[in-house]
Structure formats: structure tokens, C-alpha cells
């Protein structure tokens, strides 16, 4: 049952991701991206990571996608404005990404199955366990991330505000 669900969700995720790239209209791309995120959140639930699934939907599908839509609307990108690229550029991009795909598929094809440290722990993705890991094992990265956010915020404000002459 879970295996079929996994294949179904994977199929959805890959198909919607392809649609993001292939659709001509930027708004459609964003909406397909939302669907992709939902499919990936489904994977998180399958992996018992309920909290991650919820956060993923709230942050990515909710906040960031709304931001994307706003930017597209404000920039008025709702039409095909992409410049035409030369055939050589397209061909080389296709060859390069095809090779990357080949390397990745080739390396993952006969990957060993990893056995999890604790095979079935239904509460592994709950906030309590996540918090324990975050504030115990990953305390320093967690604290250092605050500098990243502060730096990004200062940078955004600096770029956004007008020069006072």
C-alpha cells in the first residue's frame, strides 16, 4: 500500500516539476510548483516526518509561493518575455544536463539499501524529537543560522531603502 502511494506521489511530483519548466505562462509555473510541494510534503508524511510536512506546506506552498506570485504580478511578467536563445545554447544545455542526469541515474541505480538506525519509530518526526535533535546535536548550527538570517535581513533593508542625500 505504502509502496504504491510512494510511486503515485513520486509520479505526481516529477510530472508537476516538469510542468513548472515546460509551461509558458509564469503564473502556471508557480501554481504547478505549489502542487509539486504538496506532493513532496506527502513524501514527508510517508517518512513519518509530520512536522516537516506541515512546515513545508506552510512555508513553501504558503508564504514563498505567495511572494513569487506577488513578484510576478508586480513585474507584470504575465506574458512570454523570455528572449529567444540560439540553437547552440539550447543544444549544449541539453547535452550538459543530460550528462548530469546520466551520472546521477547511473550512480543511484544500484545504490545500496540503507537500514535506518531505528527502523520503526512512529514519533520520530514529532516536534519533541525534532527539538531534542535541534537543541542538542545541532545547537551550534541552529544558533549560527541566526547570523545568516540577520545578515540577509540587513542586506535586504540596505538594498531596499533609498539613499538619503
Amino acid at each position, binding site marked *: 500500500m505504502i509502496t504504491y502511494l510512494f510511486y503515485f506521489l513520486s509520479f505526481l511530483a516529477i510530472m508537476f516539476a516538469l510542468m513548472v519548466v515546460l509551461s509558458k505562462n509564469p503564473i502556471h509555473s508557480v501554481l504547478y510548483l505549489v502542487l509539486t510541494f504538496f506532493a513532496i510534503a506527502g513524501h514527508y508524511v510517508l517518512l513519518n516526518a509530520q512536522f516537516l510536512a506541515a512546515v513545508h506546506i506552510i512555508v513553501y506552498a504558503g508564504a514563498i509561493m505567495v511572494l513569487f506570485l506577488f513578484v510576478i504580478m508586480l513585474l507584470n511578467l504575465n506574458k512570454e518575455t523570455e528572449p529567444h536563445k540560439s540553437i547552440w545554447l539550447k543544444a549544449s544545455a541539453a547535452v550538459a544536463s543530460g550528462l548530469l542526469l546520466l551520472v546521477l541515474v547511473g550512480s543511484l541505480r544500484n545504490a545500496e539499501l540503507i537500514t535506518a538506525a531505528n527502523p520503526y519509530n512512529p514519533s520520530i518526526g514529532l516536534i519533541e524529537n525534532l527539538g531534542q535533535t535541534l537543541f542538542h546535536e545541532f545547537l551550534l548550527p541552529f544558533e*549560527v543560522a541566526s*547570523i*545568516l538570517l*540577520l*545578515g540577509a535581513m540587513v*542586506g535586504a533593508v*540596505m*538594498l531596499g531603502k533609498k539613499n*538619503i*542625500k
Partner: protein
Amino acid sequence: MTALILLSALGVIALLAEIFSFKKLLFPVVVLGLITTFVLNLVDWNTDKSWYGMMRAFSSVLIGITTLWFIMAEGFFKEESSLTDHFALILFALVGGVVMVSYTNMTMLFLGIEILSIPMYVLAASKKDDVASNEAGFKYLILGAFSTGFLLFGITLIYGATASFDLPVIADFISSHNGAVPSMFYAGILLMLIAMVFKVSAVPFHFWAPDVYQGAPTSVTAFMATIVKTAAFAAFLRLFASTFAGAGSIWIDVLWVIAALTLLVGNITAVIQTSTKRMLAYSSIAHAGYMLLALIALNQFTQSSVLFYSLAYSIGSIASFGVLSIVTASRGNDTTEAFNGLAKTNPLLAVAMTVALLSLAGIPPTAGFFAKYYIFNAAFLSGYGWLVLIAILASLIGVYYYFRIIIAMFFKESNGNASIEVTVNHKLMFIITILLTIALGLFPDFIIRLL
């Protein structure tokens, strides 16, 4: 750890300066804070050479060079409206650099790279009314985000194979598998290699570098060419020369080609540049190639030779970018002609530039000569004779374009160019760089023995 806390606190203090209006005091406060951090960093030097010694040595280089950079970039902080932001962003970037030289965990590597990069994206675009600066920031952001994607994908695959983010565990994983690690791990290494090579701007992942270096304000370019490159190389070293050393067979051949291409393309393209800033950008790409040589060598000289090279190269770059920004500001352009007759009008600037360029070109008795010597020696001992030959040819090409500026300064007429006013701080900074370059060239053992 001390350095991390002190530098972050200094960044927050810089932000508070706006509220409590001690902007005038901020410059001395920050420079003093950096010197304090530098001294504290040296005081509790750990004798454990493999991890902590390397971390101390590289973070000392980063903090010391940033101190010099602050003195050089005094003019960059004159703009009243976002002065404190500039201070804070540079200090946060330095925090990222310190994280990048001292991580033992992939999450810290990722955070370090991002903390260093995001302020750099913003600072590259900090000349808001200049289209070239905006383009630089945008290009850097898009391509940087792209390379971060590769980094994360690589980390994911490696985590998938080893079930750990910790570098020692990953190194153990390689040695316990006796070289026959799963192919997923190899793919992870290659993807991380792409990301790291992008960060050090090696060919063929260098296309962003000339545009970003040219478009960004000259002071920011100097920061990118020195601090960012040193931190990226320290991170590279930690990842590939220590952790992935056991799986060397998979990435050394790739890196061999990348290093050879970087040396040749960087140096040859630098020759045909008319803008000195763009020329220095290409030369900075070429210098990444020399440092890659030490990484490929993968022997006991790798760490010390990269440390010495990055120190010599950073001092040379700070001085040359400093002179370049002063000359560009007063003469209006950055072609080779702008340097005509500088030796007669401003002897100190000309001497500082000459020493810096000689060091970058690798002429004895400057620091750059021994830096190149140690790297070539390390590569040669590991049996990479052909690569060393390419590197020597490439540095001969380098001599040509560096000497073009030296000749312009000493043997061309100034065409009535007036003498340029130089502040006392800048004079002091140039004297320090001249002395350091020659001192490191005369007593290279002092640094080499550290690691």
C-alpha cells in the same frame, strides 16, 4: 569559538551604532575589535595541528586580512546613508568565513558558505545607482544560488551513503570501505566539487567572476578576491584534502583538468584585458589554479602551502586593489594608461603596487615567489610534473601582464597627471603591506612551520 562570538557581537554593535549615533567612532571600534579578535585567536593557539591548528591559522589569516582591508576600504564607508549596514555585512561575512575554515560538520559548511555569500551578493550590488554594480549583485546571487543547489544535492547524496554529516565519520566510512564506496557517494563528491570549484571561481565555473569583480565597488572586489577566496580554499581543503582524501582517485583527475584549464584560461585572458580591474579579476581566477595544484598534490605540504599562498596572495591583492581604487578615483579610469608616471607623482603608491604585483607574479624576494615555490614543490613531489610545467608557463604569461603596469608606472610620462592625495591611514597600510610581503619572502619558514 571565541572568534565567532566576538565577530558576531562586533557586527551587532555596528548595527547598534545607527541607533545610538556613534557612527564616527565605529571605524576605530571595529578595527580595534578585529585586532583584539586576532590576538585572542593567536593566544589560545592549539598545538593539535590537524584540525584546530588549521582552523586557527586560517581564521587568523582571515581576520588579519580583514583588518588590513578595513583600512584600505576606508573610502567605501564614507557614504552616510548605509554606513553601519556596510560594516555589519562585512563583519557577518567574516563570521561566515570563520565558520567555513573551522567546520567539522556539513551543516556548518553550508551555513558558513551562505553566511559568507549573502552579504557578498548584497555588497556587490551596493552601488545602487550603477547598473554594472546591480548586474554584478544579481549575477552573483543567481549563480551562487545555483551552485548552492549543487552543494546541497552533493551533501544529500553523501548523507544518503554514509548516514552522517560529520566529516570524521565520513572519512571513517571511506577508509572502512577500502576505496570501494557506493557510487552514490562518488556522485555526491562530484556535485560538491562543482560547488566548491564555483566558489573559488576556477575554470570552467568562472564565468561569473570577471563581471562580478568588475561591477562591484573596488573595495568589495578586494574583499571577494581575498577573504572569500581564502575561506573557500580552506573549506575546500578541509573537505577534499582531509575528508575525501581516501576517495582521491575519483576527484583528482577531474581537478587536474580544472586546474590546468584555470591556469591557462585565467592567465591568457588576463593578457587581453584593457581594464586593470578586469585584469586583476582574471589574475585572481588564475591564482585559484595555483592553489588547486596544492590540493591535487595531497601530501603533507598541501595545507601549509595553501596557507602560505593564500596569505601572500591576499596581501598582494589588498595592496594592488587599494592602489587601483585610489588611482581610479582620481584619474577617472582604470586602464593601464591611468598608471602612467605614477612613480614620479606618487612614489609610495608606485612602490606598493610594484611590490604587490611582483609578489603576485612570483618574483623573488617577495612572498609570492616562495608561495609558488612551495606549491610547485608539493605538486612535483606527488608526481604531477606536467601540471607543474603548465603552471610555470602560466606564471610566465602572468609576469607579462603584471609588468605592463609596472612599466607604465616607472617608464611612461605622466602627461601632466597631478600627484594624488593619499590619507595617512592608507600610507600606513601600504607600508605594512610592503613590509609584510618582503618579510614573508625573506622568512617564509615562519608561516610554513605553523602547519
